[in-house]
Protein backbone atom coordinates (compact mmCIF):
# COMPACT_ATOMS: atom_id res chain seq x y z
CA UNK A 1 0.00 0.00 0.00
CA UNK A 2 1.37 3.39 -0.89
CA UNK A 3 0.79 6.32 1.35
CA UNK A 4 1.18 9.84 0.10
CA UNK A 5 2.47 12.02 2.87
CA UNK A 6 2.28 15.72 3.40
CA UNK A 7 4.93 15.63 6.06
CA UNK A 8 7.14 12.55 6.31
CA UNK A 9 6.76 12.55 10.08
CA UNK A 10 2.97 12.35 10.04
CA UNK A 11 1.38 9.68 7.86
CA UNK A 12 -2.38 10.09 7.65
CA UNK A 13 -2.88 6.37 7.84
CA UNK A 14 -2.74 4.82 11.27
CA UNK A 15 -2.97 1.22 12.38
CA UNK A 16 -6.52 -0.04 12.25
CA UNK A 17 -8.32 -1.29 15.31
CA UNK A 18 -12.01 -1.09 14.52
CA UNK A 19 -13.23 -2.57 17.75
CA UNK A 20 -16.89 -1.86 18.29
CA UNK A 21 -17.43 1.07 20.65
CA UNK A 22 -19.20 0.12 23.88
CA UNK A 23 -21.08 1.82 26.71
CA UNK A 24 -17.85 2.20 28.68
CA UNK A 25 -16.35 4.18 25.78
CA UNK A 26 -19.34 6.50 25.78
CA UNK A 27 -19.16 6.90 29.55
CA UNK A 28 -15.42 7.65 29.36
CA UNK A 29 -16.09 10.15 26.57
CA UNK A 30 -18.80 11.95 28.55
CA UNK A 31 -16.56 11.98 31.61
CA UNK A 32 -13.77 13.42 29.49
CA UNK A 33 -16.06 16.25 28.33
CA UNK A 34 -17.02 17.31 31.86
CA UNK A 35 -13.79 16.55 33.70
CA UNK A 36 -11.68 18.73 31.42
CA UNK A 37 -13.84 21.83 31.83
CA UNK A 38 -12.83 24.39 34.41
CA UNK A 39 -16.49 25.42 34.73
CA UNK A 40 -17.35 21.95 36.12
CA UNK A 41 -15.04 22.47 39.10
CA UNK A 42 -16.05 26.10 39.57
CA UNK A 43 -19.76 25.26 39.54
CA UNK A 44 -19.54 22.27 41.88
CA UNK A 45 -17.26 24.10 44.35
CA UNK A 46 -19.64 27.03 44.29
CA UNK A 47 -22.52 24.74 45.23
CA UNK A 48 -20.62 23.19 48.14
CA UNK A 49 -19.25 26.49 49.46
CA UNK A 50 -22.50 28.46 49.14
CA UNK A 51 -24.39 25.78 51.06
CA UNK A 52 -21.82 25.49 53.84
CA UNK A 53 -21.43 29.27 54.11
CA UNK A 54 -25.21 29.74 54.37
CA UNK A 55 -25.42 27.13 57.13
CA UNK A 56 -22.46 28.61 59.00
CA UNK A 57 -23.87 32.15 58.82
CA UNK A 58 -27.31 31.02 59.93
CA UNK A 59 -25.84 29.09 62.87
CA UNK A 60 -23.77 32.15 63.70
CA UNK A 61 -26.84 34.36 63.70
CA UNK A 62 -28.77 31.89 65.88
CA UNK A 63 -25.87 31.44 68.28
CA UNK A 64 -25.23 35.18 68.61
CA UNK A 65 -28.84 36.23 69.18
CA UNK A 66 -30.43 33.46 71.24
CA UNK A 67 -29.64 33.53 74.95
CA UNK A 68 -31.96 30.70 75.99
CA UNK A 69 -32.49 27.58 73.96
CA UNK A 70 -36.11 26.68 73.03
CA UNK A 71 -37.38 23.16 73.75
CA UNK A 72 -37.82 22.24 70.10
CA UNK A 73 -34.31 23.37 69.15
CA UNK A 74 -33.15 21.13 66.30
CA UNK A 75 -29.42 21.45 65.45
CA UNK A 76 -29.70 18.85 62.64
CA UNK A 77 -32.36 20.70 60.64
CA UNK A 78 -30.67 24.07 61.26
CA UNK A 79 -27.41 22.76 59.78
CA UNK A 80 -29.22 21.73 56.56
CA UNK A 81 -30.51 25.27 55.89
CA UNK A 82 -28.01 25.87 53.04
CA UNK A 83 -29.31 22.91 50.98
CA UNK A 84 -31.40 25.10 48.68
CA UNK A 85 -28.34 26.95 47.38
CA UNK A 86 -26.49 23.76 46.51
CA UNK A 87 -29.64 22.44 44.87
CA UNK A 88 -30.00 25.51 42.65
CA UNK A 89 -26.37 25.37 41.53
CA UNK A 90 -26.45 21.59 40.87
CA UNK A 91 -29.73 21.87 38.95
CA UNK A 92 -28.13 24.49 36.70
CA UNK A 93 -25.15 22.13 36.31
CA UNK A 94 -27.52 19.35 35.24
CA UNK A 95 -29.17 21.59 32.63
CA UNK A 96 -25.84 22.86 31.27
CA UNK A 97 -24.39 19.35 30.95
CA UNK A 98 -26.57 18.92 27.87
CA UNK A 99 -28.00 22.32 26.87
CA UNK A 100 -24.49 23.60 26.12
CA UNK A 101 -24.12 20.85 23.52
CA UNK A 102 -27.31 21.97 21.84
CA UNK A 103 -26.35 25.65 21.83
CA UNK A 104 -22.90 24.97 20.33
CA UNK A 105 -24.08 22.26 17.95
CA UNK A 106 -21.65 19.83 19.58
CA UNK A 107 -24.51 17.35 20.10
CA UNK A 108 -24.22 16.45 16.42
CA UNK A 109 -20.56 15.60 16.83
CA UNK A 110 -21.47 13.50 19.87
CA UNK A 111 -24.08 11.60 17.86
CA UNK A 112 -21.78 11.16 14.85
CA UNK A 113 -19.18 9.63 17.19
CA UNK A 114 -21.80 7.54 18.99
CA UNK A 115 -24.89 7.08 16.82
CA UNK A 116 -26.42 4.76 19.43
CA UNK A 117 -28.58 7.38 21.13
CA UNK A 118 -29.69 5.25 24.09
CA UNK A 119 -26.06 4.81 24.97
CA UNK A 120 -25.41 8.56 24.88
CA UNK A 121 -28.55 9.28 26.90
CA UNK A 122 -27.83 6.77 29.66
CA UNK A 123 -24.15 7.70 29.83
CA UNK A 124 -25.05 11.36 30.36
CA UNK A 125 -27.65 10.59 33.03
CA UNK A 126 -25.45 8.07 34.86
CA UNK A 127 -22.51 10.45 34.89
CA UNK A 128 -24.40 13.59 35.95
CA UNK A 129 -26.24 11.52 38.59
CA UNK A 130 -23.00 10.16 39.99
CA UNK A 131 -21.25 13.56 40.05
CA UNK A 132 -24.21 15.21 41.85
CA UNK A 133 -24.46 12.29 44.29
CA UNK A 134 -20.85 12.88 45.35
CA UNK A 135 -21.28 16.67 45.39
CA UNK A 136 -24.56 16.35 47.32
CA UNK A 137 -23.07 14.13 50.02
CA UNK A 138 -20.02 16.42 50.36
CA UNK A 139 -22.45 19.33 50.69
CA UNK A 140 -24.66 17.85 53.44
CA UNK A 141 -21.78 16.35 55.43
CA UNK A 142 -19.93 19.67 55.15
CA UNK A 143 -23.01 21.64 56.24
CA UNK A 144 -23.64 19.29 59.14
CA UNK A 145 -20.16 19.66 60.62
CA UNK A 146 -19.99 23.40 59.93
CA UNK A 147 -23.38 23.91 61.58
CA UNK A 148 -22.56 21.81 64.66
CA UNK A 149 -19.14 23.49 65.02
CA UNK A 150 -20.61 27.01 65.01
CA UNK A 151 -23.53 26.11 67.31
CA UNK A 152 -21.12 24.30 69.64
CA UNK A 153 -18.88 27.36 69.79
CA UNK A 154 -21.88 29.32 71.19
CA UNK A 155 -22.52 26.58 73.73
CA UNK A 156 -25.76 25.50 72.05
CA UNK A 157 -26.91 21.86 71.86
CA UNK A 158 -25.29 19.96 68.98
CA UNK A 159 -25.94 16.63 67.24
CA UNK A 160 -23.51 13.86 66.36
CA UNK A 161 -23.37 12.00 63.04
CA UNK A 162 -23.74 8.82 65.12
CA UNK A 163 -27.37 9.84 65.74
CA UNK A 164 -29.69 7.83 63.40
CA UNK A 165 -31.89 10.91 62.84
CA UNK A 166 -28.82 12.89 61.81
CA UNK A 167 -27.67 10.09 59.50
CA UNK A 168 -31.02 9.84 57.79
CA UNK A 169 -31.10 13.61 57.33
CA UNK A 170 -27.49 14.07 56.17
CA UNK A 171 -27.18 11.06 53.83
CA UNK A 172 -30.80 11.09 52.71
CA UNK A 173 -30.76 14.79 51.83
CA UNK A 174 -27.33 14.42 50.19
CA UNK A 175 -28.49 11.56 47.98
CA UNK A 176 -31.83 13.24 47.24
CA UNK A 177 -29.94 16.20 45.81
CA UNK A 178 -29.61 14.09 42.63
CA UNK A 179 -33.35 14.47 41.96
CA UNK A 180 -33.61 18.04 40.67
CA UNK A 181 -30.34 18.11 38.67
CA UNK A 182 -31.56 14.93 36.92
CA UNK A 183 -34.84 16.70 36.08
CA UNK A 184 -32.68 19.63 34.92
CA UNK A 185 -30.76 17.36 32.55
CA UNK A 186 -34.04 15.94 31.23
CA UNK A 187 -35.48 19.44 30.68
CA UNK A 188 -32.22 20.36 28.92
CA UNK A 189 -32.78 17.47 26.50
CA UNK A 190 -36.49 18.27 26.06
CA UNK A 191 -36.20 22.04 25.61
CA UNK A 192 -32.66 22.24 24.13
CA UNK A 193 -32.45 25.70 25.64
CA UNK A 194 -30.37 26.66 28.67
CA UNK A 195 -32.65 29.48 29.79
CA UNK A 196 -35.87 27.52 29.27
CA UNK A 197 -34.65 24.43 31.10
CA UNK A 198 -33.22 26.39 34.05
CA UNK A 199 -36.45 28.36 34.44
CA UNK A 200 -38.52 25.17 34.34
CA UNK A 201 -36.49 23.16 36.83
CA UNK A 202 -36.08 26.03 39.30
CA UNK A 203 -39.77 26.86 38.98
CA UNK A 204 -40.64 23.29 39.88
CA UNK A 205 -38.13 23.38 42.75
CA UNK A 206 -39.53 26.62 44.17
CA UNK A 207 -43.21 26.20 43.51
CA UNK A 208 -44.00 24.96 47.05
CA UNK A 209 -42.03 27.83 48.58
CA UNK A 210 -43.79 30.37 46.39
CA UNK A 211 -47.37 29.24 46.96
CA UNK A 212 -46.96 26.89 49.91
CA UNK A 213 -47.41 29.14 52.92
CA UNK A 214 -50.21 31.15 51.35
CA UNK A 215 -52.29 28.24 50.11
CA UNK A 216 -55.21 26.96 52.21
CA UNK A 217 -54.49 23.88 54.25
CA UNK A 218 -56.62 21.49 52.16
CA UNK A 219 -54.72 22.43 49.01
CA UNK A 220 -51.42 21.96 50.82
CA UNK A 221 -52.47 18.43 51.71
CA UNK A 222 -54.04 17.44 48.41
CA UNK A 223 -52.29 19.47 45.72
CA UNK A 224 -48.94 20.75 46.97
CA UNK A 225 -48.10 17.33 48.37
CA UNK A 226 -48.05 16.07 44.80
CA UNK A 227 -45.25 18.46 43.77
CA UNK A 228 -41.86 16.84 43.24
CA UNK A 229 -40.06 18.80 45.96
CA UNK A 230 -42.64 17.81 48.59
CA UNK A 231 -42.41 14.21 47.42
CA UNK A 232 -38.64 14.24 47.93
CA UNK A 233 -38.82 16.16 51.21
CA UNK A 234 -41.34 13.70 52.63
CA UNK A 235 -38.66 11.03 52.34
CA UNK A 236 -35.73 13.04 53.62
CA UNK A 237 -36.89 15.64 56.16
CA UNK A 238 -40.45 14.47 56.83
CA UNK A 239 -39.35 12.70 60.02
CA UNK A 240 -37.97 15.96 61.46
CA UNK A 241 -40.41 18.60 60.23
CA UNK A 242 -44.16 18.91 60.33
CA UNK A 243 -45.72 20.23 57.16
CA UNK A 244 -49.21 19.51 55.89
CA UNK A 245 -47.79 19.15 52.36
CA UNK A 246 -45.60 16.23 53.41
CA UNK A 247 -46.82 12.69 52.90
CA UNK A 248 -45.83 9.33 54.32
CA UNK A 249 -42.22 8.60 53.13
CA UNK A 250 -43.41 5.71 50.92
CA UNK A 251 -46.05 7.91 49.27
CA UNK A 252 -43.42 10.65 48.92
CA UNK A 253 -41.12 8.21 47.15
CA UNK A 254 -43.92 7.25 44.81
CA UNK A 255 -44.68 10.89 44.00
CA UNK A 256 -41.02 11.68 43.35
CA UNK A 257 -40.53 8.55 41.22
CA UNK A 258 -43.59 9.36 39.12
CA UNK A 259 -42.23 12.81 38.29
CA UNK A 260 -38.78 11.44 37.53
CA UNK A 261 -39.97 8.60 35.30
CA UNK A 262 -42.41 10.82 33.41
CA UNK A 263 -39.98 13.65 32.66
CA UNK A 264 -36.87 11.55 32.07
CA UNK A 265 -38.93 9.10 30.02
CA UNK A 266 -40.31 11.91 27.85
CA UNK A 267 -36.76 13.23 27.37
CA UNK A 268 -35.55 9.74 26.40
CA UNK A 269 -38.25 9.25 23.77
CA UNK A 270 -37.62 12.70 22.34
CA UNK A 271 -33.87 12.12 22.27
CA UNK A 272 -34.29 8.87 20.36
CA UNK A 273 -36.78 10.16 17.81
CA UNK A 274 -35.87 13.76 17.19
CA UNK A 275 -33.60 15.09 14.44
CA UNK A 276 -30.35 16.25 16.01
Amino acid sequence: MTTVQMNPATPITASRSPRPASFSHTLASEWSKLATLRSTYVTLSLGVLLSIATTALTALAIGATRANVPDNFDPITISMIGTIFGLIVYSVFGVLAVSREYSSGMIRLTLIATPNRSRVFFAKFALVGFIILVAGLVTTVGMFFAGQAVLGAYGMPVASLGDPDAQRMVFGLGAAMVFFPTLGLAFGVLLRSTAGAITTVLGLLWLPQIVGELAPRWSQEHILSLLPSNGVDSMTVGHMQHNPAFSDPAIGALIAATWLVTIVGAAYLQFLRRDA
Partner: protein
Amino acid sequence: MIEVKDITKRYGETVAVDHLSFTVKPGIVTGFLGPNGAGKSTTMRMILGLDRPSSGEVTVNGHAYKTMPAPMHEVGALLDAKAAHGGHTAYQHLRWLARAGGISPRRIEDVLELVGLSDVAGKRVGGFSLGMYQRLGIAAALLADPQILLFDEPVNGLDPEGIRWIRTLLQQLAAEGRTIFLSSHLMNEMEETADHVIVIGRGRLIADASIAEFTQRSASSHVRVVTPQAENLAAVLQRAGASVTTAEGVLIVTGIDAPTIGQIAAANHFEVHELASRRASLEDAFMELTQASLEYQAGAANTTNTLKNEHSLAAMEI
Protein backbone atom coordinates in the same frame (compact mmCIF):
# COMPACT_ATOMS: atom_id res chain seq x y z
CA MET B 1 -19.69 3.72 -0.75
CA ILE B 2 -22.66 5.86 0.19
CA GLU B 3 -26.04 4.98 -1.28
CA VAL B 4 -28.88 7.46 -1.07
CA LYS B 5 -32.10 5.76 -2.09
CA ASP B 6 -35.12 7.89 -2.88
CA ILE B 7 -34.98 10.03 0.24
CA THR B 8 -37.43 12.78 1.01
CA LYS B 9 -37.30 15.15 3.94
CA ARG B 10 -40.26 17.32 4.84
CA TYR B 11 -40.41 19.99 7.49
CA GLY B 12 -44.12 20.64 7.75
CA GLU B 13 -45.13 22.09 4.39
CA THR B 14 -41.57 22.59 3.18
CA VAL B 15 -39.90 19.81 1.22
CA ALA B 16 -36.16 20.15 1.85
CA VAL B 17 -35.16 17.00 -0.02
CA ASP B 18 -37.41 15.57 -2.70
CA HIS B 19 -37.01 11.93 -3.82
CA LEU B 20 -33.24 12.19 -4.06
CA SER B 21 -31.17 9.18 -5.16
CA PHE B 22 -27.46 8.97 -5.88
CA THR B 23 -24.38 6.91 -5.11
CA VAL B 24 -21.06 8.23 -3.86
CA LYS B 25 -18.55 5.89 -5.48
CA PRO B 26 -15.53 4.71 -3.54
CA GLY B 27 -12.05 6.06 -4.15
CA ILE B 28 -12.90 9.35 -5.81
CA VAL B 29 -13.74 12.91 -4.80
CA THR B 30 -17.42 13.60 -5.36
CA GLY B 31 -18.58 17.18 -5.24
CA PHE B 32 -22.04 17.91 -3.89
CA LEU B 33 -23.23 21.12 -5.47
CA GLY B 34 -26.27 23.27 -5.12
CA PRO B 35 -27.27 26.80 -4.27
CA ASN B 36 -27.89 27.76 -0.65
CA GLY B 37 -31.00 26.05 0.68
CA ALA B 38 -30.87 23.27 -1.93
CA GLY B 39 -30.82 20.56 0.76
CA LYS B 40 -27.10 19.67 0.82
CA SER B 41 -26.65 19.88 4.58
CA THR B 42 -29.95 18.13 5.24
CA THR B 43 -28.84 15.27 2.98
CA MET B 44 -25.49 15.03 4.76
CA ARG B 45 -27.23 14.92 8.14
CA MET B 46 -29.45 12.10 6.87
CA ILE B 47 -26.38 10.16 5.67
CA LEU B 48 -24.95 10.44 9.19
CA GLY B 49 -28.16 9.35 10.89
CA LEU B 50 -28.66 12.73 12.57
CA ASP B 51 -31.89 13.48 10.72
CA ARG B 52 -34.41 10.83 9.84
CA PRO B 53 -35.68 10.87 6.23
CA SER B 54 -39.46 11.24 5.88
CA SER B 55 -39.15 8.38 3.38
CA GLY B 56 -36.40 6.44 1.66
CA GLU B 57 -33.14 5.19 3.12
CA VAL B 58 -29.42 5.88 3.19
CA THR B 59 -26.67 3.30 3.65
CA VAL B 60 -22.95 3.68 4.19
CA ASN B 61 -20.96 0.59 3.20
CA GLY B 62 -24.26 -1.25 3.12
CA HIS B 63 -25.41 -0.31 6.63
CA ALA B 64 -27.52 2.46 8.09
CA TYR B 65 -25.02 4.78 9.83
CA LYS B 66 -26.92 4.44 13.13
CA THR B 67 -26.35 0.70 13.24
CA MET B 68 -22.57 0.77 12.60
CA PRO B 69 -20.64 -0.77 15.48
CA ALA B 70 -17.53 1.39 14.99
CA PRO B 71 -18.70 4.30 12.81
CA MET B 72 -15.72 6.59 13.43
CA HIS B 73 -13.42 3.99 11.89
CA GLU B 74 -15.46 3.93 8.70
CA VAL B 75 -16.70 7.48 8.25
CA GLY B 76 -15.22 10.84 9.25
CA ALA B 77 -17.35 13.95 9.01
CA LEU B 78 -16.99 17.69 9.26
CA LEU B 79 -20.38 19.38 9.37
CA ASP B 80 -20.01 22.51 11.46
CA ALA B 81 -16.44 23.27 12.47
CA LYS B 82 -17.54 25.59 15.27
CA ALA B 83 -19.48 22.82 17.03
CA ALA B 84 -17.04 22.59 19.93
CA HIS B 85 -17.02 23.67 23.55
CA GLY B 86 -15.03 26.90 23.83
CA GLY B 87 -13.68 25.83 27.22
CA HIS B 88 -11.95 22.73 25.85
CA THR B 89 -8.44 22.87 24.48
CA ALA B 90 -7.85 21.44 21.00
CA TYR B 91 -6.36 18.32 22.61
CA GLN B 92 -9.27 17.92 25.07
CA HIS B 93 -11.80 18.31 22.25
CA LEU B 94 -10.18 15.47 20.33
CA ARG B 95 -9.74 13.48 23.54
CA TRP B 96 -13.44 13.03 24.24
CA LEU B 97 -14.01 12.13 20.60
CA ALA B 98 -11.17 9.61 20.67
CA ARG B 99 -12.59 8.05 23.84
CA ALA B 100 -16.03 7.72 22.26
CA GLY B 101 -14.54 5.64 19.46
CA GLY B 102 -11.97 3.76 21.52
CA ILE B 103 -9.17 5.45 19.59
CA SER B 104 -5.62 5.58 20.95
CA PRO B 105 -4.58 8.98 22.40
CA ARG B 106 -1.41 8.77 20.28
CA ARG B 107 -3.63 9.35 17.27
CA ILE B 108 -4.64 12.76 18.68
CA GLU B 109 -1.08 14.02 18.42
CA ASP B 110 -0.78 12.59 14.90
CA VAL B 111 -3.86 14.35 13.57
CA LEU B 112 -3.01 17.60 15.37
CA GLU B 113 0.35 17.56 13.65
CA LEU B 114 -1.22 16.69 10.33
CA VAL B 115 -3.51 19.73 10.41
CA GLY B 116 -0.80 21.97 11.82
CA LEU B 117 -2.34 22.59 15.25
CA SER B 118 0.36 20.92 17.39
CA ASP B 119 1.58 24.26 18.71
CA VAL B 120 -1.87 25.27 19.93
CA ALA B 121 -2.95 21.82 21.19
CA GLY B 122 -3.14 23.21 24.74
CA LYS B 123 -5.03 26.39 23.83
CA ARG B 124 -8.76 26.75 24.41
CA VAL B 125 -10.73 26.50 21.18
CA GLY B 126 -12.87 29.48 22.23
CA GLY B 127 -10.05 31.73 21.04
CA PHE B 128 -9.59 29.98 17.69
CA SER B 129 -10.03 31.67 14.32
CA LEU B 130 -12.39 30.14 11.77
CA GLY B 131 -9.41 28.66 9.91
CA MET B 132 -8.20 26.97 13.08
CA TYR B 133 -11.70 25.62 13.79
CA GLN B 134 -11.77 24.13 10.28
CA ARG B 135 -8.40 22.47 10.86
CA LEU B 136 -9.64 21.10 14.20
CA GLY B 137 -12.81 19.82 12.52
CA ILE B 138 -10.75 18.03 9.89
CA ALA B 139 -8.49 16.57 12.60
CA ALA B 140 -11.64 15.23 14.29
CA ALA B 141 -12.86 13.67 11.04
CA LEU B 142 -9.50 11.95 10.49
CA LEU B 143 -9.12 10.71 14.11
CA ALA B 144 -9.97 7.08 13.46
CA ASP B 145 -8.44 7.08 9.98
CA PRO B 146 -11.69 6.38 8.09
CA GLN B 147 -11.89 5.49 4.40
CA ILE B 148 -14.93 7.68 3.80
CA LEU B 149 -14.87 11.40 4.50
CA LEU B 150 -17.79 13.85 4.42
CA PHE B 151 -17.10 17.56 4.41
CA ASP B 152 -19.88 20.14 4.43
CA GLU B 153 -18.66 23.44 2.97
CA PRO B 154 -15.11 23.03 4.27
CA VAL B 155 -13.75 26.18 2.62
CA ASN B 156 -16.61 28.44 3.64
CA GLY B 157 -15.24 31.64 5.10
CA LEU B 158 -11.60 30.67 4.77
CA ASP B 159 -8.88 32.97 3.49
CA PRO B 160 -7.02 32.02 0.27
CA GLU B 161 -4.22 30.35 2.22
CA GLY B 162 -6.71 28.23 4.16
CA ILE B 163 -8.53 27.29 0.96
CA ARG B 164 -5.28 26.22 -0.66
CA TRP B 165 -4.38 24.17 2.42
CA ILE B 166 -7.70 22.30 2.37
CA ARG B 167 -7.43 21.73 -1.39
CA THR B 168 -3.95 20.21 -0.98
CA LEU B 169 -5.10 18.05 1.90
CA LEU B 170 -8.15 16.81 -0.02
CA GLN B 171 -5.98 15.89 -2.99
CA GLN B 172 -3.61 14.07 -0.67
CA LEU B 173 -6.48 12.19 0.99
CA ALA B 174 -7.94 11.35 -2.42
CA ALA B 175 -4.56 10.10 -3.65
CA GLU B 176 -4.62 7.62 -0.77
CA GLY B 177 -7.73 6.15 -2.31
CA ARG B 178 -10.24 7.54 0.16
CA THR B 179 -13.85 8.26 -0.72
CA ILE B 180 -14.52 11.96 -0.31
CA PHE B 181 -17.92 13.58 -0.43
CA LEU B 182 -17.59 17.32 -0.40
CA SER B 183 -20.36 19.89 -0.50
CA SER B 184 -19.93 23.42 -1.70
CA HIS B 185 -21.72 26.25 -3.39
CA LEU B 186 -18.39 27.55 -4.74
CA MET B 187 -18.22 26.05 -8.21
CA ASN B 188 -14.68 26.91 -9.23
CA GLU B 189 -13.49 25.22 -6.04
CA MET B 190 -15.05 21.95 -7.19
CA GLU B 191 -13.46 22.19 -10.61
CA GLU B 192 -10.06 21.92 -8.92
CA THR B 193 -10.80 19.08 -6.53
CA ALA B 194 -13.72 16.90 -7.60
CA ASP B 195 -13.77 14.04 -10.13
CA HIS B 196 -17.51 13.70 -10.12
CA VAL B 197 -20.34 16.05 -9.26
CA ILE B 198 -23.82 15.60 -7.90
CA VAL B 199 -25.89 18.74 -8.38
CA ILE B 200 -29.13 19.37 -6.53
CA GLY B 201 -31.56 22.25 -6.54
CA ARG B 202 -34.63 22.58 -4.32
CA GLY B 203 -33.91 19.11 -2.97
CA ARG B 204 -34.03 17.41 -6.37
CA LEU B 205 -31.26 15.80 -8.36
CA ILE B 206 -30.24 18.00 -11.30
CA ALA B 207 -27.09 16.25 -12.46
CA ASP B 208 -24.95 13.27 -11.52
CA ALA B 209 -21.93 13.20 -13.84
CA SER B 210 -18.17 13.45 -14.15
CA ILE B 211 -16.83 17.00 -14.25
CA ALA B 212 -16.05 16.64 -17.98
CA GLU B 213 -19.53 15.34 -18.88
CA PHE B 214 -21.15 17.97 -16.77
CA THR B 215 -19.49 20.90 -18.44
CA GLN B 216 -19.81 19.47 -21.96
CA ARG B 217 -23.52 19.03 -21.55
CA SER B 218 -23.93 22.68 -20.86
CA ALA B 219 -25.36 24.87 -23.61
CA SER B 220 -22.66 27.38 -22.73
CA SER B 221 -20.15 25.09 -24.40
CA HIS B 222 -20.03 26.13 -28.05
CA VAL B 223 -17.83 26.43 -31.11
CA ARG B 224 -17.16 29.81 -32.64
CA VAL B 225 -16.75 29.79 -36.42
CA VAL B 226 -15.76 32.81 -38.52
CA THR B 227 -16.39 32.47 -42.24
CA PRO B 228 -17.20 34.79 -45.17
CA GLN B 229 -19.94 32.31 -46.25
CA ALA B 230 -21.77 32.39 -42.94
CA GLU B 231 -25.32 31.78 -44.13
CA ASN B 232 -24.43 28.83 -46.33
CA LEU B 233 -22.28 27.10 -43.71
CA ALA B 234 -24.95 27.67 -41.10
CA ALA B 235 -27.49 25.89 -43.27
CA VAL B 236 -25.14 22.92 -43.81
CA LEU B 237 -24.35 22.64 -40.12
CA GLN B 238 -28.02 22.81 -39.19
CA ARG B 239 -28.70 19.95 -41.56
CA ALA B 240 -25.93 18.02 -39.72
CA GLY B 241 -27.88 18.46 -36.47
CA ALA B 242 -26.27 21.55 -34.94
CA SER B 243 -28.03 24.61 -33.67
CA VAL B 244 -26.48 27.75 -35.00
CA THR B 245 -26.85 31.44 -34.30
CA THR B 246 -25.33 33.95 -36.67
CA ALA B 247 -24.07 37.43 -35.83
CA GLU B 248 -21.92 39.63 -38.10
CA GLY B 249 -20.40 36.68 -39.92
CA VAL B 250 -19.67 34.77 -36.70
CA LEU B 251 -21.39 31.46 -36.12
CA ILE B 252 -22.01 30.21 -32.59
CA VAL B 253 -22.48 26.46 -32.97
CA THR B 254 -23.73 24.05 -30.35
CA GLY B 255 -24.58 20.38 -30.65
CA ILE B 256 -21.53 19.23 -32.64
CA ASP B 257 -17.87 19.56 -31.80
CA ALA B 258 -15.08 21.51 -33.51
CA PRO B 259 -13.44 18.59 -35.45
CA THR B 260 -16.80 17.64 -36.95
CA ILE B 261 -17.44 21.24 -37.99
CA GLY B 262 -13.96 21.36 -39.55
CA GLN B 263 -14.66 18.18 -41.54
CA ILE B 264 -18.02 19.43 -42.76
CA ALA B 265 -16.53 22.76 -43.78
CA ALA B 266 -13.62 21.08 -45.63
CA ALA B 267 -15.88 18.57 -47.40
CA ASN B 268 -18.10 21.38 -48.66
CA HIS B 269 -15.16 23.67 -49.55
CA PHE B 270 -16.02 26.46 -47.16
CA GLU B 271 -13.42 29.06 -46.34
CA VAL B 272 -12.95 29.15 -42.54
CA HIS B 273 -10.98 31.93 -40.83
CA GLU B 274 -11.49 30.91 -37.26
CA LEU B 275 -12.66 27.75 -35.55
CA ALA B 276 -12.52 27.76 -31.73
CA SER B 277 -14.30 25.61 -29.21
CA ARG B 278 -15.17 27.21 -25.92
CA ARG B 279 -15.87 24.86 -23.01
CA ALA B 280 -18.20 26.14 -20.35
CA SER B 281 -16.69 26.49 -16.93
CA LEU B 282 -18.25 24.45 -14.19
CA GLU B 283 -19.68 27.66 -12.85
CA ASP B 284 -21.45 28.45 -16.14
CA ALA B 285 -22.85 24.95 -16.33
CA PHE B 286 -23.97 25.13 -12.75
CA MET B 287 -25.63 28.52 -13.08
CA GLU B 288 -27.48 27.35 -16.15
CA LEU B 289 -28.71 24.17 -14.50
CA THR B 290 -29.74 25.67 -11.20
CA GLN B 291 -31.25 28.91 -12.52
CA ALA B 292 -34.70 27.42 -12.41
CA SER B 293 -34.28 25.98 -8.96
CA LEU B 294 -32.77 28.93 -7.15
CA GLU B 295 -34.57 29.56 -3.93
CA TYR B 296 -33.58 33.17 -3.60
CA GLN B 297 -33.20 34.74 -6.99
CA ALA B 298 -32.00 38.29 -7.41
CA GLY B 299 -33.77 40.43 -9.98
CA ALA B 300 -32.69 40.06 -13.60
CA ALA B 301 -31.79 43.77 -13.72
CA ASN B 302 -28.05 43.15 -13.94
CA THR B 303 -28.27 40.91 -16.96
CA THR B 304 -30.45 43.38 -18.79
CA ASN B 305 -28.04 46.20 -18.09
CA THR B 306 -25.09 44.21 -19.39
CA LEU B 307 -26.94 43.44 -22.58
CA LYS B 308 -27.87 47.09 -23.06
CA ASN B 309 -24.25 48.10 -22.59
CA GLU B 310 -23.15 45.61 -25.19
CA HIS B 311 -25.68 46.97 -27.63
CA SER B 312 -24.58 50.55 -27.12
CA LEU B 313 -20.94 49.49 -27.49
CA ALA B 314 -21.78 47.77 -30.75
CA ALA B 315 -23.61 50.89 -31.91
CA MET B 316 -20.59 53.06 -31.09
CA GLU B 317 -18.28 50.84 -33.09
CA ILE B 318 -20.47 51.28 -36.13
